[in-house]
């Protein structure tokens, strides 16, 4: 099976709400694809449609060229973490994995292997009702890996993880992708994916807003802006604004200047005798790029709420 996910033209309406509005993207193997957007942008709905849990009104979603509902032993083709809290509290973590394994014709040996892999250890023999959120996420990842699938889909896997857990999860996802799997990870916080995702699909209002590699996104968001550190903020703002630049105050002694190249900024400040300690090309964070891209979606939602 080809390790990819193809989503094209998904539309779905829940009563008056258009949850998906032509959602289209492809997830390819070898790197982690971030699936990012504000809450309610349609990430979970898209994942549920891909997994055959919800039916789309229009469009199609294929995994390795096939609809999920036609897969035989699907856990060996797609590993999923949707809701880590979806557990029978009185069943042990190991037994949760065991029934999943048995349903796919897998053995208890495989269960022990994935328990080891996610570092659940002896907790696996305790009742799942007593698990912390972090342990549930690990159990969910173990369940996703049970069938050693070439495709992984994880919905908000960082939720509830402590910093140590987040570091572990990032490394784990990267290594899974490095093994040649297609890994789709949704999150409503771009920062979580900063060092993990190689590719990002940004969604808002049920459609794709941006679909690019992380490097491209950051370059686009950085634009031709210059970061300026100065103790004479008002003077610098006057001089640069007079020269036609757009100046924004970033914090107490830094300004972000748009519309002028770094050399021009240095020349102008020197000419007018304005002191400065640092001039640098601005490099946006993934978070900033994301904020820029989803601003419309968020604003629209705020309007709609009124």
């Amino acid at each position: 099976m080809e390790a990819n996910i193809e989503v094209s033209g998904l539309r779905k309406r829940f009563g008056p709400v258009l949850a998906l509005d032509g959602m289209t993207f492809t997830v390819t193997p070898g790197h982690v694809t971030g699936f990012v957007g504000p809450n309610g942008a349609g990430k979970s709905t898209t994942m549920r449609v891909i997994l055959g849990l919800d039916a789309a009104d229009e469009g199609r979603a294929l995994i390795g060229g096939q609809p999920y509902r036609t897969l035989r032993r699907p856990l060996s083709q797609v590993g999923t973490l949707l809701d880590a809290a979806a557990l029978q509290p009185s069943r042990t973590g190991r037994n949760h994995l065991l029934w999943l394994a048995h349903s796919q014709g897998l053995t208890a040996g495989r269960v022990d292997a994935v328990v080891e892999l996610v570092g659940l250890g002896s907790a696996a023999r305790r009742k799942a009702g007593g698990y912390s959120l972090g342990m549930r996420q690990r159990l969910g990842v173990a369940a996703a890996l049970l069938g050693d699938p070439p495709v992984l889909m994880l919905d908000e896997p960082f939720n509830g993880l402590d910093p140590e857990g987040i570091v572990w999860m990032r490394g784990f996802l990267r290594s899974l992708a490095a093994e040649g799997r297609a890994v789709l990870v949704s999150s409503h916080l771009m920062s979580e994916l900063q060092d993990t995702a190689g590719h990002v699909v940004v969604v808002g209002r049920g459609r794709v807003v941006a679909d690019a590699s992380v490097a491209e996104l950051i370059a686009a968001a950085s634009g031709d802006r210059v970061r300026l550190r100065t103790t004479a903020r008002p003077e610098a703002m006057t001089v640069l604004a007079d020269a036609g630049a757009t100046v924004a105050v970033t914090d107490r002694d830094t300004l972000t200047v748009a519309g002028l190249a770094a050399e021009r900024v240095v020349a102008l400040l020197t000419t007018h005798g304005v002191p400065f300690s640092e001039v640098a090309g601005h490099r946006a964070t993934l978070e900033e790029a994301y904020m820029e891209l989803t601003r419309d979606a968020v604003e629209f939602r705020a309007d709609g709420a009124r």
Partner: protein
Amino acid sequence: MTGLLRGEWTKFRTVRGWVLGMALAVLITVLLGVFTASGSHSSCSGPEGDVCPALPVGPEGLAVNDRFSFAHQPLAGDGSVTARVASLTGIITYPPPDHDKIVPGVVPWAKAGIMIKESVRPGSAYAAMMLTGGHGARMQHNYEHDVAGSREARWLRLTRSGDTITGAESADGTHWTTVSTVRLTGLQKNALMGLFVASPCDLTVTQGDLGGTIGKCRLTQATAVFDHVSLAGNPWTYDDLGGHTGAPALSQGTFRESGGTFTMSGSGDVGPYGIEGGQIVERTLSGAYTGLIVVIVVAVMFITAEYRRGLIRTTLLASPRRGRVLVAKSLVIGVVTFVVGLIAAVIAVPLCSRILRANGNQLLPVSTSTELRVVAGTAALLAVAAVLALAIGALIRRSAVAVITAIAVIVVPHVLTTASVLPAELSQWLLRVTPAAAFAIQQSIPEYSQVEGHYVPQMGYYPLAPWAGFAVLCAYALLALGLAVLLLRRRDA
């Protein structure tokens, strides 16, 4: 599908509460049976002290009535007897409306006629041609079997040839019609042949205080005059079969001969024994109704727990073909419950039977196949009820509402109909159209059309035949499961 089944089985056995619930169902079924049996005492005051005399057992292994007036002669080998019933009259004690007088009258199943009987031993094989008080001429044999003749007949004839007996009737003594030919297997060469009269008690059914009915059976006596008796010349022996001294005078038979005319009176009946006469095997399984409630709770939780936790989505991800998920779940809960029901029944029936007998109760004997049907049928009933409960759980998705619904449709009708609180007609209707109809599979003693009986659910008689009643439950389970599959396929999970 095997993977799916294995997965669902693992799912079931790894929740301790469900496994314990099923064990509890066994325990409750057995213990309640033991309590009921321990509380049932029976004693008789008779010639043998307070031990009740054993019920006669017929050639087919069932408890029988064998109490009637019998004037007989030995019949060596093949032969024939003919007689005319000149009149059939009788006395009914304290009939409705006021139950205060003894009046002349013949009950519909009063019998007078001729009989070939193996011996005077109660329960021995027989075949008889008779006129009845209200059901015309009949040929009956070996207590259970009854064939209708005409209403005009007055003349009766029985012919023995080996172990085959042919019964014939005639209105005029010249034109004869065969009513039936029956076989009395192993009938010995020297049998008895003669005249008999029986008159079963008069059943009156009154309204009970709570809405149910109360049946009372009062003593009757029938008197028949026979003439044109073919054996008239030989000496007669008269026996008041099954009677005992000290019984009311009216219940004791008489026999008088005068110039070829025989006048004989008698009381009692020769036929199968009904539920009212003793303890029935299904009563040892009365705990199963409560066990069923526990089974329903577990079966409902088996699916609603998944909805409550969102685990249903994990299940559907592992097995995207949704119909199969419900089928696998049904199979697992059905098989588990069947085994659980079988264990409970296999323990409860012999254990409680022993306790009942030890307490002096007469346990009505039934055939092995009937006992098997009661035991396996109870297990099957629990199993299919569990599947129905599971399907209701899948439709409603909420534990409490689904449990209440399942109990309301399966258990409640049965409680209402057997607890003597509803009118009999309503009870019978409920036991035809609700899933509770399936309890008919436990009925060990059938309703006999040739015996006037208080055939109502509260006595243990169901309106549908055992397997027909069971089929009603199966139909409900299939319907609910089909609906649940349809909905699961259509709805977003």
